[in-house]
């Protein structure tokens, strides 16, 4: 008996997108309202589903639905969520309505406080229908239990984002959009070879993920296929040294699209590592642990140092994300329950924190017309509310205790520190080195906050209006979530932990709770 929850969750935004796209010319206001309504319906459905999750039937993948799609290739329309996928679906569903509201005027032609036009008027309904298509694909990519279906969403979701950056972004938008697309496409194509290879070598004539777990036994084959998947995910995540597309794309994208790009799309990379790289190719994952952790630590430190040197707010936030993704990757490959749960939690928290920071920065940029930090100063006096939200979002970015990112970063570091997965001490060193990033984070965030909010009020900043109701409605829920999950992460962890345990069973790592008592691996 297939559950209809996830197919409906996918269908609603697609239908919404079609409706919005077919609206007559000039019905911009209606397009916005329909998009907002659709995204709120999706959010409501997702939340109802999430609350039913603990009591839902199914071993690992709940709300599972499997239909034949292309029998010749063994491809199914297979969807279902475990705890990890569920929290990421919820993250997507929460962020989309917020982004819709935040982008309300983005396609109308953005004017600064003194009336200069930053971006010209563009097609409103195209923007919002792309947004809804993207939402369907974001939900689909996390919910897919068929590897081929996952690949289809993984690649297809590039297209709406490509058009959102390319058509609605800043001055360098077409360069950034092409760079984004080509990087991702290249990784995706390598993954395609690995996907086919997995199918051929496993010889099971199906792409269903549960049936393919443990299907590849030969260690050499595992390594090749692992590499195909991992490179694609590393580009997506992005990990140093294939990260260079992200600062360009995030800086040029409109603030709303940047939130989804960094907050959700990039999570597909880390999610893919946890779900596919680890469980399908456990031996290869263990063999490659140290090189990958080294890359992750480089990302953590490198991203943080480069962030300090940025003069453009959006680029700065993008580089901080590279540092944070380093933490997530490190947590995933630390092969301990605490670190992996922390990494998963980090994916969610980073989505909220970076989302809030991007949006607050976007509101600043919409007022001043410039992303350069040097063009600001003293914004706190003229727009105290905006400054307050910006500060809280920034503090979440540096993982201040009491805010949600702290919990996850702490879990990743302690989990990695204590992990015995890779012999004695190697991961401990990685955890210690990565802790340096905490100091660097304080530098890049606080220095930016200081230059933007404090000091003498710059002349153009004096014309700033504080947040209007729409903008408060955009930022308030995110900040509430950041603070809420900062003090009480248990609901999320309760959902995530069983899924992570299952992952570790499939990877054949002893539960670290036992490992720490000296059982070893």
């Amino acid at each position, binding site marked *: 008996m297939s559950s209809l929850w996830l197919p409906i969750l996918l269908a609603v935004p697609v239908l919404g997108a079609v409706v919005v796209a077919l609206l007559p010319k000039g019905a911009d206001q209606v397009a916005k309202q329909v998009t907002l309504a659709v995204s709120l319906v999706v959010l409501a459905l997702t939340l109802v589903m999430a609350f039913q999750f603990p009591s839902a039937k199914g071993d690992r993948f709940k709300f599972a639905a499997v239909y034949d799609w292309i029998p010749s290739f063994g491809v199914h329309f297979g969807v279902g969520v475990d705890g990890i996928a569920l929290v990421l679906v919820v993250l997507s569903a929460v962020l989309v309505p917020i982004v819709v509201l935040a982008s309300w005027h983005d396609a109308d032609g953005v004017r600064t406080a003194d009336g200069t036009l930053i971006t010209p008027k563009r097609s409103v309904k195209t923007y919002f229908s792309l947004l809804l298509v993207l939402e369907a694909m974001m939900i689909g990519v996390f919910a897919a239990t068929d590897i081929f279906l996952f690949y*289809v969403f993984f690649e297809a979701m590039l297209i709406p984002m490509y058009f959102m950056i390319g058509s609605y972004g800043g001055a360098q938008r077409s360069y950034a959009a092409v760079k984004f697309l*080509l990087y991702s496409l290249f990784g995706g194509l390598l993954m395609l070879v690995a996907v086919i290879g997995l*199918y051929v070598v496993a010889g099971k004539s199906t792409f269903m993920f549960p049936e393919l777990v443990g299907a590849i036994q030969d260690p050499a084959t595992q390594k090749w296929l692992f590499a195909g998947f991992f490179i694609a995910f590393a580009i997506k995540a992005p990990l140093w040294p294939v990260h260079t597309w992200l600062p360009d794309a995030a800086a040029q994208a409109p603030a709303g699209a940047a939130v989804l790009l960094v907050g959700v799309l990039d999570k597909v990379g880390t999610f893919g590592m946890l779900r596919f790289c680890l469980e399908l190719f456990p031996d290869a994952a263990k063999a490659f642990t140290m090189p990958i952790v080294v890359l992750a630590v480089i990302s953590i430190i490198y991203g943080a140092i480069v962030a300090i040197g940025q003069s453009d707010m959006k680029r700065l936030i993008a580089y901080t994300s590279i540092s944070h993704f380093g933490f997530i990757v490190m947590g995933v490959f630390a092969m301990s329950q605490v670190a992996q749960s922390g990494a998963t939690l980090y994916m969610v928290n980073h989505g909220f924190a970076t989302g809030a920071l991007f949006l607050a920065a976007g509101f600043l940029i919409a007022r001043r017309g410039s992303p350069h930090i040097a063009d600001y100063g003293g914004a706190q006096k003229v727009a105290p509310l905006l400054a307050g939200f910006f500060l809280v979002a920034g503090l979440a970015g540096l993982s201040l205790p009491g805010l949600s990112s702290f919990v996850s970063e702490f879990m990743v570091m302690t989990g990695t520190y204590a992990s015995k997965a890779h012999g004695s001490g190697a991961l401990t060193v990685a955890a210690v080195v990565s802790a340096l990033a905490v100091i660097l984070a304080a530098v890049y965030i606080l220095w930016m906050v200081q230059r933007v909010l404090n000091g003498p009020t710059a002349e153009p900043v004096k014309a700033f209006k504080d947040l209007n109701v729409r903008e408060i409605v955009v930022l308030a829920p995110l900040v509430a979530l950041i603070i809420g999950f900062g003090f009480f992460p248990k609901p999320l962890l309760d959902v995530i932990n069983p899924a992570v345990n299952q992952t570790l069973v499939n990877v054949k790592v002893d539960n670290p709770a036992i490992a720490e008592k000296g059982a070893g691996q």
Partner: protein
Amino acid sequence: MNPIMQAPTIEYGTLAPMLLVFGAAVLGVLVEAFAPRYLRKVMQVPLTLVSLGGAFALVLVQVIMRGAPTEAVAMGAVAVDGPSLFIWGVILVLSFVCVLLVNDEGHFVASAAAVPGSADEEEAEAAGGAHTEIYPLLLFAVGGMMLFPAAHDLLTMFVGLEVMSLPLYLMCGLARRRRLLSQESSMKYFLLGAFSSAFFLYGTAMLYGYAGTVSLPGINKALAGGALLDPLLLIGFAMLGVGLLFKIGAAPFQAWKPDVYQGAPTPITALMASGTLVAAMGAVLRVFWVGLGNLDWNWRPVMWAVAALTMIVGAVLAITQTDIKRMLAYSSIAHAGFLLIGVMATFDKSQQNAGSLSAILFYLLVYSFTTVGAFAIVTMVRDPGGEAGHLSRWAGLGKRSPLLAGVFAFFLLAFAGIPLTSGFFGKYAVFAAALASGSESGDSLGGWMTGLVVLGVVASAVAAFFYVRVIVLMFFSEPAADGPSIAEPSMGTVAVIAVAALVTVGVGIFPQPMLDVAHQAAANLFIR
């Protein structure tokens, strides 16, 4: 030897689709000869469309009522097997669609014999002259396209090749605008094509010298017991290969493609890029599989290099192109390389054969439909002097005609193989077949097939760059002040684009029915 000449037996029923097309072509010539000028077009268009539609119906009848024959017909000259019937069906639909494009006003010269820019030309144009011969010529070309991949011996195949090519040489020179470019393309295509035909024929003679027969299964039989390093065989096989690879535009025999595609009238380019490629690919499959199957240790490594080179040359040179038709030509070269991966996957000795063959048939179908759609759109974007070929002229098209640019972008994404387009499944099917064949024990290339697929993937990524560049131009650039105009499309053009888009979307989302058709066509393989 039997001293008495026997009358040949011809299975008219089985050959009916091809005979109908040729018969209609001959009728068309008679119309040209006897009908008054003002009636010719009125008579030619329905004649052409009805014969193509009828031939397609006959193919369907053959498939549904009788199934594919298991023996070669016409005294072993023509093999109407599953793959042949599939290819016939595809070619007939494609040529039907191309006739709708040909039928549009303004693509063809009023008087081909007039010197470009001369008073004669102006006069002919003012008098409303038109070359309605184009319709019978096109039918002959289509008939040749049907015979070429179905031929069961090398001589019949040569006849098919020539019947297909000669009308195409002629039609390339008939563009109304940019006459000199068109005539140049016609001349180049003719000379190079003549060379390649000569190679083909010479190779045929050499193989006859080796095997004592021109029949494909006969050659294969001779290979099974004969010396495999006989110079006659090696020279013959190499020359035959050159002739065939020229027709699909594989590197290093690809040089004609960009010039010819650019100069030819766009409807004819569409026909060449789809129909000719499908036919030639069918012929390549048949020769290398049925005729040279026992020589696979010799030709597969060569084919490996050709496929790799073709993909790289096509993808890399396309980046530097500034003309939309030249870019599509190089894209077609790159796709020929992907198809050659499929050809190599098709030859191995186990069950996979049928799977690989169906993959390549499927690829041919999806690629050719998208191609026709893309060229149909090219005909609509016009400057005062003809089609707006230069890429810079396409800047900002997405702002001025979003629908047209959107559909074109969609076709480009299909060429690039993005999921949820038909092109993705085509590419997937071929790559999967290649990896599967390489992983079988006893495959003569083994791990090299994986290498080729990785190379194919890298070439796809490079190719994606130039497809995406056009999208960037159309959507993310500001329109030029004196940009090209969008021709008011005729019903025919709209129908062509609609069919192409429907196939691209439909197969992109639900590929299973088409896969089933391709699979059935490939189930019994070629007649050997």
